[in-house]
Protein backbone atom coordinates (compact mmCIF):
# COMPACT_ATOMS: atom_id res chain seq x y z
CA UNK A 1 0.00 0.00 0.00
CA UNK A 2 1.22 3.48 -0.91
CA UNK A 3 0.74 6.80 0.86
CA UNK A 4 -1.97 7.86 -1.62
CA UNK A 5 -3.84 4.64 -0.81
CA UNK A 6 -3.89 5.63 2.83
CA UNK A 7 -5.61 8.91 1.91
CA UNK A 8 -8.16 6.98 -0.10
CA UNK A 9 -8.82 4.61 2.79
CA UNK A 10 -9.30 7.53 5.15
CA UNK A 11 -11.71 9.22 2.77
CA UNK A 12 -13.80 6.12 2.42
CA UNK A 13 -13.64 4.53 5.85
CA UNK A 14 -12.62 7.23 8.24
CA UNK A 15 -9.97 7.08 10.93
CA UNK A 16 -10.80 3.77 12.50
CA UNK A 17 -10.57 0.91 12.32
CA UNK A 18 -7.89 0.93 9.64
CA UNK A 19 -7.47 -2.20 7.55
CA UNK A 20 -4.52 -4.51 8.13
CA UNK A 21 -2.67 -3.37 5.00
CA UNK A 22 -3.00 0.27 6.01
CA UNK A 23 -1.69 -0.45 9.49
CA UNK A 24 1.26 -2.29 7.96
CA UNK A 25 2.04 0.72 5.82
CA UNK A 26 1.76 3.07 8.79
CA UNK A 27 4.25 0.97 10.72
CA UNK A 28 6.82 1.73 8.06
CA UNK A 29 5.83 5.26 6.95
CA UNK A 30 6.50 8.16 9.32
CA UNK A 31 4.76 10.76 7.10
CA UNK A 32 1.52 8.83 7.11
CA UNK A 33 1.71 8.33 10.87
CA UNK A 34 2.10 12.08 11.31
CA UNK A 35 -0.77 12.64 8.90
CA UNK A 36 -3.04 10.32 10.91
CA UNK A 37 -1.95 11.97 14.15
CA UNK A 38 -2.84 15.42 12.76
CA UNK A 39 -6.25 14.23 11.63
CA UNK A 40 -6.93 12.63 14.98
CA UNK A 41 -6.05 15.80 16.88
CA UNK A 42 -8.27 17.82 14.52
CA UNK A 43 -11.23 15.53 15.12
CA UNK A 44 -10.65 15.67 18.88
CA UNK A 45 -10.49 19.45 18.81
CA UNK A 46 -13.67 19.64 16.74
CA UNK A 47 -15.52 17.51 19.29
CA UNK A 48 -14.59 19.96 22.01
CA UNK A 49 -16.07 22.95 20.16
CA UNK A 50 -19.18 24.43 21.83
CA UNK A 51 -22.57 23.69 20.37
CA UNK A 52 -23.75 26.04 17.66
CA UNK A 53 -25.93 28.89 18.85
CA UNK A 54 -29.19 29.31 16.99
CA UNK A 55 -29.67 32.91 15.88
CA UNK A 56 -33.10 34.51 16.30
CA UNK A 57 -35.75 34.03 13.60
CA UNK A 58 -35.52 37.58 12.37
CA UNK A 59 -31.91 37.12 11.28
CA UNK A 60 -32.89 34.42 8.79
CA UNK A 61 -35.94 36.29 7.58
CA UNK A 62 -34.00 39.51 7.07
CA UNK A 63 -31.14 37.66 5.44
CA UNK A 64 -33.39 35.88 3.02
CA UNK A 65 -35.26 39.08 2.17
CA UNK A 66 -31.92 40.77 1.45
CA UNK A 67 -30.63 37.85 -0.64
CA UNK A 68 -33.82 37.75 -2.65
CA UNK A 69 -33.72 41.46 -3.16
CA UNK A 70 -30.19 41.21 -4.49
CA UNK A 71 -31.15 38.30 -6.71
CA UNK A 72 -28.67 35.95 -5.07
CA UNK A 73 -31.29 33.34 -4.31
CA UNK A 74 -34.23 32.50 -6.48
CA UNK A 75 -37.91 32.10 -6.05
CA UNK A 76 -39.38 28.59 -6.01
CA UNK A 77 -41.64 27.51 -8.79
CA UNK A 78 -43.72 24.98 -6.94
CA UNK A 79 -45.56 24.63 -3.73
CA UNK A 80 -45.73 21.35 -1.92
CA UNK A 81 -49.10 19.69 -2.16
CA UNK A 82 -51.31 19.79 0.88
CA UNK A 83 -50.44 17.16 3.45
CA UNK A 84 -52.87 14.34 4.14
CA UNK A 85 -55.03 14.47 7.24
CA UNK A 86 -53.64 11.24 8.66
CA UNK A 87 -50.15 12.76 8.80
CA UNK A 88 -51.44 15.69 10.74
CA UNK A 89 -53.40 13.52 13.12
CA UNK A 90 -50.23 11.77 14.18
CA UNK A 91 -48.43 15.11 14.57
CA UNK A 92 -51.24 16.68 16.57
CA UNK A 93 -51.26 13.66 18.85
CA UNK A 94 -47.54 14.16 19.36
CA UNK A 95 -47.86 17.90 20.09
CA UNK A 96 -50.85 18.38 22.33
CA UNK A 97 -49.34 21.47 23.88
CA UNK A 98 -50.15 24.69 22.02
CA UNK A 99 -46.91 26.48 22.84
CA UNK A 100 -44.84 23.46 21.90
CA UNK A 101 -46.62 23.17 18.60
CA UNK A 102 -46.15 26.86 17.87
CA UNK A 103 -42.49 26.67 18.69
CA UNK A 104 -42.19 23.66 16.41
CA UNK A 105 -43.69 25.61 13.52
CA UNK A 106 -41.21 28.42 14.14
CA UNK A 107 -38.31 25.98 14.15
CA UNK A 108 -39.53 24.40 10.91
CA UNK A 109 -39.71 27.80 9.21
CA UNK A 110 -36.22 28.75 10.36
CA UNK A 111 -34.89 25.35 9.31
CA UNK A 112 -36.43 25.77 5.87
CA UNK A 113 -34.87 29.22 5.57
CA UNK A 114 -31.45 27.93 6.62
CA UNK A 115 -31.63 25.09 4.14
CA UNK A 116 -32.63 27.40 1.35
CA UNK A 117 -29.83 29.87 2.01
CA UNK A 118 -27.20 27.15 2.33
CA UNK A 119 -28.16 25.24 -0.74
CA UNK A 120 -28.91 28.29 -2.86
CA UNK A 121 -31.81 26.28 -4.06
CA UNK A 122 -35.40 26.39 -3.10
CA UNK A 123 -37.08 23.68 -1.14
CA UNK A 124 -40.70 22.71 -1.11
CA UNK A 125 -42.51 24.90 1.32
CA UNK A 126 -45.51 24.49 3.49
CA UNK A 127 -48.39 26.27 1.91
CA UNK A 128 -50.58 28.57 3.98
CA UNK A 129 -53.40 26.13 3.32
CA UNK A 130 -51.39 23.39 4.93
CA UNK A 131 -50.67 25.52 7.97
CA UNK A 132 -54.33 26.25 8.37
CA UNK A 133 -55.36 22.70 7.70
CA UNK A 134 -52.93 21.15 10.13
CA UNK A 135 -54.13 23.46 12.84
CA UNK A 136 -50.59 23.89 14.18
CA UNK A 137 -51.06 27.59 13.85
CA UNK A 138 -53.31 29.25 16.33
CA UNK A 139 -56.47 31.12 15.34
CA UNK A 140 -55.75 32.83 12.08
CA UNK A 141 -56.02 36.60 12.23
CA UNK A 142 -55.14 37.41 8.66
CA UNK A 143 -56.30 40.65 7.23
CA UNK A 144 -57.90 40.82 3.85
CA UNK A 145 -54.71 42.38 2.53
CA UNK A 146 -52.63 39.53 3.81
CA UNK A 147 -54.93 36.97 2.27
CA UNK A 148 -54.49 38.65 -1.07
CA UNK A 149 -50.78 38.90 -0.66
CA UNK A 150 -49.66 35.66 -2.25
CA UNK A 151 -51.62 35.85 -5.48
CA UNK A 152 -50.57 39.47 -5.96
CA UNK A 153 -46.89 38.99 -5.47
CA UNK A 154 -44.72 38.35 -8.43
CA UNK A 155 -41.14 37.53 -9.23
CA UNK A 156 -38.49 38.42 -6.71
CA UNK A 157 -40.74 38.84 -3.67
CA UNK A 158 -42.76 35.63 -4.07
CA UNK A 159 -40.77 33.56 -1.66
CA UNK A 160 -40.56 36.27 0.99
CA UNK A 161 -44.27 36.94 0.72
CA UNK A 162 -45.12 33.27 1.08
CA UNK A 163 -42.84 32.73 4.04
CA UNK A 164 -44.16 35.78 5.82
CA UNK A 165 -47.73 34.71 5.12
CA UNK A 166 -46.94 31.37 6.70
CA UNK A 167 -45.39 32.96 9.73
CA UNK A 168 -48.16 35.53 10.15
CA UNK A 169 -50.83 33.24 11.65
CA UNK A 170 -48.23 31.81 14.01
CA UNK A 171 -47.18 35.25 15.19
CA UNK A 172 -50.69 36.66 15.49
CA UNK A 173 -51.85 33.48 17.15
CA UNK A 174 -49.31 33.87 19.89
CA UNK A 175 -50.81 37.17 21.03
CA UNK A 176 -54.37 36.67 19.86
CA UNK A 177 -55.73 36.19 23.36
CA UNK A 178 -53.94 39.21 24.77
CA UNK A 179 -55.91 42.36 25.47
CA UNK A 180 -52.80 44.35 26.20
CA UNK A 181 -52.57 47.71 24.40
CA UNK A 182 -49.09 46.71 23.20
CA UNK A 183 -50.45 43.68 21.40
CA UNK A 184 -53.30 45.74 20.02
CA UNK A 185 -50.70 48.17 18.70
CA UNK A 186 -48.68 45.35 17.14
CA UNK A 187 -51.77 43.96 15.44
CA UNK A 188 -52.74 47.41 14.23
CA UNK A 189 -49.30 47.99 12.75
CA UNK A 190 -49.33 44.59 11.10
CA UNK A 191 -52.58 45.57 9.46
CA UNK A 192 -51.03 48.82 8.28
CA UNK A 193 -47.98 47.17 6.81
CA UNK A 194 -50.10 44.50 5.13
CA UNK A 195 -52.28 47.13 3.54
CA UNK A 196 -49.23 49.00 2.37
CA UNK A 197 -47.69 45.84 0.90
CA UNK A 198 -50.92 45.07 -0.93
CA UNK A 199 -51.00 48.63 -2.30
CA UNK A 200 -47.42 48.41 -3.54
CA UNK A 201 -48.07 45.00 -5.06
CA UNK A 202 -51.07 46.30 -6.95
CA UNK A 203 -49.06 49.23 -8.23
CA UNK A 204 -46.15 47.04 -9.27
CA UNK A 205 -48.49 44.82 -11.18
CA UNK A 206 -49.48 47.80 -13.26
CA UNK A 207 -45.99 49.39 -13.36
CA UNK A 208 -43.46 46.57 -12.99
CA UNK A 209 -40.55 48.90 -13.76
CA UNK A 210 -41.29 51.33 -10.96
CA UNK A 211 -38.12 51.13 -8.88
CA UNK A 212 -39.30 53.50 -6.18
CA UNK A 213 -42.32 51.34 -5.42
CA UNK A 214 -40.10 48.28 -5.47
CA UNK A 215 -37.87 49.89 -2.86
CA UNK A 216 -40.87 50.65 -0.67
CA UNK A 217 -42.18 47.13 -1.07
CA UNK A 218 -38.83 45.67 -0.11
CA UNK A 219 -38.66 47.89 2.97
CA UNK A 220 -42.23 46.96 3.90
CA UNK A 221 -41.42 43.25 3.75
CA UNK A 222 -38.41 43.89 5.95
CA UNK A 223 -40.58 45.72 8.45
CA UNK A 224 -43.17 42.98 8.37
CA UNK A 225 -40.50 40.36 9.04
CA UNK A 226 -39.23 42.33 12.02
CA UNK A 227 -42.75 42.90 13.28
CA UNK A 228 -43.67 39.22 13.11
CA UNK A 229 -40.45 38.37 14.86
CA UNK A 230 -41.27 40.89 17.59
CA UNK A 231 -44.76 39.40 17.96
CA UNK A 232 -43.33 35.92 18.35
CA UNK A 233 -40.81 37.09 20.91
CA UNK A 234 -43.51 38.89 22.83
CA UNK A 235 -45.82 35.90 22.56
CA UNK A 236 -43.15 33.75 24.14
CA UNK A 237 -42.73 36.19 27.00
CA UNK A 238 -46.44 36.39 27.86
CA UNK A 239 -47.38 32.74 27.33
Amino acid at each position, binding site marked *: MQCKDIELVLEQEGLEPLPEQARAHLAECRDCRNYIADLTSLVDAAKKLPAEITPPDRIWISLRAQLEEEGIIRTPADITPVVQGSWWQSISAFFPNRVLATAMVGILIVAAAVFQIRSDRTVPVVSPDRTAKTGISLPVAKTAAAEQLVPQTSGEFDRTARDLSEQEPVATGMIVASRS*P*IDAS*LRDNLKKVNE*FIAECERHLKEQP*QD*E*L*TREYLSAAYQQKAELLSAMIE*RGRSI*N
Partner: protein
Amino acid sequence: MCLRMMQINPAVPVSWAKRSILPVLSAGLFLWSATPARAAGTGQRIEKQFSITGRPVVVIHNVANGRIEVKSWKNSEVNVVGTQTSNKIGFEIEQVGDRIDVTATILEPGADSLDLQANLQLTVPEETELQLKTETGLIYVEQVMGDMKLESYAGDVHLKEVSGYIIVKTTGGSLVCTQCAGKLDFSSIGGNAQILQPQLNNVNLMTTTGNILFDGDFVRTGLYSMKSGKGLVEVRFSSTDSFDLKAQTATGIVDNQAASFLKPDSHGVKHIASKFTHGLFGTVGMGLAKVELSSYSGTIRIMKRD
Protein backbone atom coordinates in the same frame (compact mmCIF):
# COMPACT_ATOMS: atom_id res chain seq x y z
CA MET B 1 -34.09 41.98 46.79
CA CYS B 2 -37.26 41.41 48.68
CA LEU B 3 -37.53 43.16 52.01
CA ARG B 4 -39.93 41.63 54.44
CA MET B 5 -41.56 43.02 57.52
CA MET B 6 -39.93 41.49 60.61
CA GLN B 7 -42.17 40.59 63.53
CA ILE B 8 -40.62 41.09 66.97
CA ASN B 9 -42.10 39.72 70.18
CA PRO B 10 -42.45 42.64 72.65
CA ALA B 11 -41.73 40.30 75.57
CA VAL B 12 -38.20 39.72 74.37
CA PRO B 13 -35.64 41.91 76.15
CA VAL B 14 -34.42 44.92 74.16
CA SER B 15 -30.75 43.98 74.42
CA TRP B 16 -31.48 40.56 72.97
CA ALA B 17 -33.48 42.14 70.20
CA LYS B 18 -30.64 44.50 69.42
CA ARG B 19 -28.12 41.69 69.39
CA SER B 20 -30.31 39.62 67.07
CA ILE B 21 -31.60 42.26 64.78
CA LEU B 22 -28.53 44.35 64.22
CA PRO B 23 -26.49 41.60 62.57
CA VAL B 24 -29.47 40.68 60.43
CA LEU B 25 -30.00 44.29 59.40
CA SER B 26 -26.32 44.73 58.70
CA ALA B 27 -26.27 41.62 56.56
CA GLY B 28 -29.38 42.82 54.80
CA LEU B 29 -27.85 46.21 54.07
CA PHE B 30 -24.69 44.55 52.84
CA LEU B 31 -26.62 42.30 50.49
CA TRP B 32 -28.74 45.21 49.31
CA SER B 33 -25.68 47.23 48.43
CA ALA B 34 -24.21 44.31 46.48
CA THR B 35 -25.41 43.80 42.94
CA PRO B 36 -27.55 42.56 41.34
CA ALA B 37 -30.47 44.10 43.11
CA ARG B 38 -34.03 43.03 42.79
CA ALA B 39 -37.13 44.85 43.95
CA ALA B 40 -40.69 43.75 44.13
CA GLY B 41 -43.62 45.04 46.07
CA THR B 42 -46.76 47.07 45.85
CA GLY B 43 -46.01 50.66 44.91
CA GLN B 44 -42.38 50.03 45.65
CA ARG B 45 -39.51 52.34 44.84
CA ILE B 46 -35.95 51.26 44.46
CA GLU B 47 -32.95 53.56 44.18
CA LYS B 48 -29.40 52.51 43.41
CA GLN B 49 -26.27 54.49 42.73
CA PHE B 50 -23.24 53.17 40.87
CA SER B 51 -19.80 54.73 40.70
CA ILE B 52 -18.14 54.50 37.34
CA THR B 53 -14.61 55.23 36.21
CA GLY B 54 -14.93 55.75 32.47
CA ARG B 55 -17.67 56.30 29.97
CA PRO B 56 -20.61 54.19 31.13
CA VAL B 57 -22.87 52.02 29.04
CA VAL B 58 -26.40 51.79 30.34
CA VAL B 59 -28.62 48.97 29.14
CA ILE B 60 -32.29 49.01 30.05
CA HIS B 61 -34.84 46.42 29.13
CA ASN B 62 -38.30 47.26 30.36
CA VAL B 63 -40.79 44.61 29.42
CA ALA B 64 -43.41 46.21 31.60
CA ASN B 65 -45.41 49.31 30.73
CA GLY B 66 -43.94 52.57 31.80
CA ARG B 67 -41.68 55.48 31.19
CA ILE B 68 -37.90 55.52 30.93
CA GLU B 69 -36.33 58.87 31.63
CA VAL B 70 -32.62 59.53 31.31
CA LYS B 71 -31.00 62.83 32.26
CA SER B 72 -27.41 63.78 32.83
CA TRP B 73 -25.35 65.30 35.61
CA LYS B 74 -21.71 66.15 36.22
CA ASN B 75 -21.06 63.27 38.64
CA SER B 76 -19.23 60.08 37.69
CA GLU B 77 -22.14 58.07 38.92
CA VAL B 78 -25.21 56.45 37.51
CA ASN B 79 -28.31 56.84 39.63
CA VAL B 80 -31.24 54.51 39.00
CA VAL B 81 -34.70 55.02 40.46
CA GLY B 82 -37.34 52.46 39.69
CA THR B 83 -40.99 52.62 40.70
CA GLN B 84 -43.63 50.02 40.20
CA THR B 85 -47.36 49.80 40.75
CA SER B 86 -47.52 46.25 41.99
CA ASN B 87 -45.47 43.27 43.10
CA LYS B 88 -46.06 41.65 39.74
CA ILE B 89 -42.93 43.29 38.37
CA GLY B 90 -39.36 42.82 39.49
CA PHE B 91 -36.32 45.02 38.87
CA GLU B 92 -32.90 43.55 38.33
CA ILE B 93 -30.10 46.08 38.48
CA GLU B 94 -26.55 45.02 37.94
CA GLN B 95 -23.19 46.71 37.50
CA VAL B 96 -20.39 45.06 35.57
CA GLY B 97 -17.48 47.44 35.34
CA ASP B 98 -18.82 50.58 33.68
CA ARG B 99 -21.85 48.80 32.31
CA ILE B 100 -25.12 49.14 34.17
CA ASP B 101 -27.90 46.69 33.29
CA VAL B 102 -31.43 47.42 34.37
CA THR B 103 -34.19 44.94 33.62
CA ALA B 104 -37.81 45.18 34.61
CA THR B 105 -39.39 41.76 34.35
CA ILE B 106 -42.97 40.63 34.65
CA LEU B 107 -43.34 38.15 37.49
CA GLU B 108 -46.97 37.33 36.76
CA PRO B 109 -47.52 37.23 33.01
CA GLY B 110 -51.30 37.04 33.27
CA ALA B 111 -51.59 40.16 35.41
CA ASP B 112 -53.69 43.14 34.42
CA SER B 113 -51.80 45.71 32.37
CA LEU B 114 -52.46 48.36 35.05
CA ASP B 115 -50.45 46.27 37.49
CA LEU B 116 -47.57 45.97 35.09
CA GLN B 117 -46.34 49.52 35.19
CA ALA B 118 -42.70 50.19 35.94
CA ASN B 119 -41.09 53.58 35.53
CA LEU B 120 -37.36 54.09 35.45
CA GLN B 121 -35.56 57.34 36.05
CA LEU B 122 -31.84 57.47 35.46
CA THR B 123 -29.27 60.15 35.97
CA VAL B 124 -26.06 59.47 34.12
CA PRO B 125 -22.79 61.24 33.31
CA GLU B 126 -23.07 63.49 30.26
CA GLU B 127 -21.01 61.13 28.16
CA THR B 128 -22.92 57.88 28.36
CA GLU B 129 -23.88 55.25 25.86
CA LEU B 130 -27.45 54.06 26.06
CA GLN B 131 -29.28 50.99 24.92
CA LEU B 132 -32.91 51.21 25.93
CA LYS B 133 -35.69 48.85 25.05
CA THR B 134 -39.27 49.15 26.18
CA GLU B 135 -42.63 47.94 25.01
CA THR B 136 -44.80 50.93 25.70
CA GLY B 137 -44.45 54.17 27.59
CA LEU B 138 -42.30 57.14 26.77
CA ILE B 139 -38.55 57.04 26.40
CA TYR B 140 -37.20 60.46 27.30
CA VAL B 141 -33.50 61.31 27.02
CA GLU B 142 -32.09 64.75 27.73
CA GLN B 143 -28.58 66.17 27.48
CA VAL B 144 -26.73 62.94 26.95
CA MET B 145 -23.77 62.68 24.62
CA GLY B 146 -23.03 59.21 23.34
CA ASP B 147 -24.25 56.58 20.96
CA MET B 148 -27.70 55.33 21.73
CA LYS B 149 -30.08 52.69 20.51
CA LEU B 150 -33.66 53.18 21.58
CA GLU B 151 -36.34 50.62 20.78
CA SER B 152 -40.03 50.64 21.55
CA TYR B 153 -43.14 48.91 20.28
CA ALA B 154 -45.84 51.38 21.09
CA GLY B 155 -44.13 54.07 23.12
CA ASP B 156 -42.94 57.43 21.89
CA VAL B 157 -39.33 58.56 22.02
CA HIS B 158 -38.49 62.13 22.97
CA LEU B 159 -34.91 63.32 22.73
CA LYS B 160 -33.68 66.71 23.73
CA GLU B 161 -30.15 68.02 23.28
CA VAL B 162 -28.61 64.63 22.69
CA SER B 163 -25.73 63.87 20.38
CA GLY B 164 -23.97 60.85 18.96
CA TYR B 165 -25.08 58.05 16.70
CA ILE B 166 -28.75 57.77 17.55
CA ILE B 167 -30.76 54.75 16.43
CA VAL B 168 -34.47 54.76 17.10
CA LYS B 169 -36.73 51.86 16.17
CA THR B 170 -40.41 51.80 16.94
CA THR B 171 -43.42 49.93 15.73
CA GLY B 172 -46.07 52.53 16.34
CA GLY B 173 -44.30 55.06 18.54
CA SER B 174 -43.29 58.50 17.34
CA LEU B 175 -40.01 60.34 17.65
CA VAL B 176 -39.54 63.94 18.64
CA CYS B 177 -35.91 64.98 18.43
CA THR B 178 -35.18 68.51 19.57
CA GLN B 179 -31.72 70.03 19.15
CA CYS B 180 -30.13 66.70 18.39
CA ALA B 181 -26.66 66.42 16.89
CA GLY B 182 -24.66 63.73 15.16
CA LYS B 183 -26.21 60.92 13.18
CA LEU B 184 -29.82 59.78 13.40
CA ASP B 185 -31.47 56.60 12.10
CA PHE B 186 -35.20 56.23 12.65
CA SER B 187 -37.43 53.46 11.39
CA SER B 188 -41.05 52.81 12.22
CA ILE B 189 -44.24 51.41 10.77
CA GLY B 190 -46.83 53.80 12.11
CA GLY B 191 -44.76 56.33 14.01
CA ASN B 192 -44.14 59.96 13.10
CA ALA B 193 -40.78 61.71 13.25
CA GLN B 194 -40.30 65.36 14.16
CA ILE B 195 -36.79 66.71 13.93
CA LEU B 196 -36.62 70.19 15.36
CA GLN B 197 -33.64 72.59 15.35
CA PRO B 198 -31.19 69.82 14.63
CA GLN B 199 -27.44 69.85 14.19
CA LEU B 200 -27.45 66.43 12.58
CA ASN B 201 -25.07 65.72 9.74
CA ASN B 202 -26.47 62.33 8.78
CA VAL B 203 -30.17 61.53 8.90
CA ASN B 204 -32.08 58.47 7.78
CA LEU B 205 -35.79 58.52 8.51
CA MET B 206 -38.16 55.81 7.35
CA THR B 207 -41.77 55.30 8.31
CA THR B 208 -44.44 53.32 6.51
CA THR B 209 -47.54 55.29 7.40
CA GLY B 210 -46.28 58.06 9.66
CA ASN B 211 -45.43 61.67 8.88
CA ILE B 212 -42.01 63.28 8.86
CA LEU B 213 -41.20 66.85 9.75
CA PHE B 214 -37.69 68.26 9.49
CA ASP B 215 -37.55 71.80 10.71
CA GLY B 216 -34.03 73.13 10.88
CA ASP B 217 -30.68 73.61 9.24
CA PHE B 218 -28.94 71.24 6.90
CA VAL B 219 -25.32 70.93 7.96
CA ARG B 220 -22.90 71.46 5.09
CA THR B 221 -21.71 68.13 3.65
CA GLY B 222 -24.53 66.45 5.55
CA LEU B 223 -26.59 63.60 4.10
CA TYR B 224 -30.32 63.50 4.69
CA SER B 225 -32.76 60.82 3.60
CA MET B 226 -36.41 60.97 4.61
CA LYS B 227 -38.95 58.43 3.40
CA SER B 228 -42.56 57.85 4.24
CA GLY B 229 -44.72 55.24 2.56
CA LYS B 230 -48.07 56.94 2.95
CA GLY B 231 -47.43 59.95 5.14
CA LEU B 232 -46.43 63.55 4.70
CA VAL B 233 -42.76 64.46 4.38
CA GLU B 234 -42.29 68.10 5.19
CA VAL B 235 -39.00 69.98 5.16
CA ARG B 236 -38.62 73.54 6.38
CA PHE B 237 -35.26 75.06 5.56
CA SER B 238 -33.74 78.46 6.00
CA SER B 239 -32.52 80.77 3.26
CA THR B 240 -28.92 80.37 4.41
CA ASP B 241 -28.98 76.60 3.91
CA SER B 242 -27.00 74.97 1.15
CA PHE B 243 -28.17 71.67 -0.25
CA ASP B 244 -29.03 69.62 -3.30
CA LEU B 245 -32.59 68.37 -3.25
CA LYS B 246 -34.10 65.28 -4.77
CA ALA B 247 -37.77 64.66 -4.08
CA GLN B 248 -39.66 61.72 -5.55
CA THR B 249 -43.06 60.14 -5.10
CA ALA B 250 -44.70 57.23 -6.89
CA THR B 251 -48.34 58.16 -6.59
CA GLY B 252 -48.28 61.14 -4.23
CA ILE B 253 -47.57 64.80 -4.91
CA VAL B 254 -44.65 67.15 -4.48
CA ASP B 255 -45.78 70.43 -3.01
CA ASN B 256 -42.97 72.90 -3.60
CA GLN B 257 -43.67 76.04 -1.61
CA ALA B 258 -40.13 77.36 -2.02
CA ALA B 259 -39.84 77.48 -5.77
CA SER B 260 -38.12 80.85 -5.70
CA PHE B 261 -35.25 79.45 -3.63
CA LEU B 262 -34.73 76.28 -5.59
CA LYS B 263 -32.48 76.62 -8.59
CA PRO B 264 -31.71 73.97 -11.18
CA ASP B 265 -28.84 71.76 -10.15
CA SER B 266 -25.73 73.89 -10.21
CA HIS B 267 -23.22 71.06 -10.43
CA GLY B 268 -23.76 70.22 -14.05
CA VAL B 269 -25.65 67.02 -13.38
CA LYS B 270 -28.93 66.83 -15.17
CA HIS B 271 -31.45 64.86 -13.14
CA ILE B 272 -34.42 63.29 -14.84
CA ALA B 273 -37.21 61.78 -12.82
CA SER B 274 -38.24 58.26 -13.65
CA LYS B 275 -41.31 58.14 -15.86
CA PHE B 276 -43.07 56.30 -13.05
CA THR B 277 -42.51 58.97 -10.44
CA HIS B 278 -43.20 62.61 -9.81
CA GLY B 279 -39.88 64.21 -9.08
CA LEU B 280 -38.35 67.51 -8.16
CA PHE B 281 -34.64 68.29 -8.34
CA GLY B 282 -32.96 71.49 -7.40
CA THR B 283 -30.31 73.28 -5.43
CA VAL B 284 -30.46 75.76 -2.60
CA GLY B 285 -27.36 77.90 -2.16
CA MET B 286 -24.17 76.09 -3.12
CA GLY B 287 -25.73 72.67 -2.78
CA LEU B 288 -23.29 71.47 -0.16
CA ALA B 289 -25.55 69.05 1.67
CA LYS B 290 -27.55 66.28 0.02
CA VAL B 291 -31.26 65.94 0.78
CA GLU B 292 -33.36 63.08 -0.54
CA LEU B 293 -37.07 63.04 0.15
CA SER B 294 -39.43 60.37 -0.99
CA SER B 295 -42.90 59.06 -0.42
CA TYR B 296 -44.84 56.30 -2.06
CA SER B 297 -48.28 57.86 -1.94
CA GLY B 298 -48.00 60.74 0.48
CA THR B 299 -47.21 64.40 -0.01
CA ILE B 300 -43.73 65.87 -0.03
CA ARG B 301 -43.79 69.47 1.06
CA ILE B 302 -40.80 71.77 0.77
CA MET B 303 -40.97 75.15 2.39
CA LYS B 304 -38.76 77.91 3.68
CA ARG B 305 -38.91 78.93 7.31
CA ASP B 306 -39.76 82.54 8.07
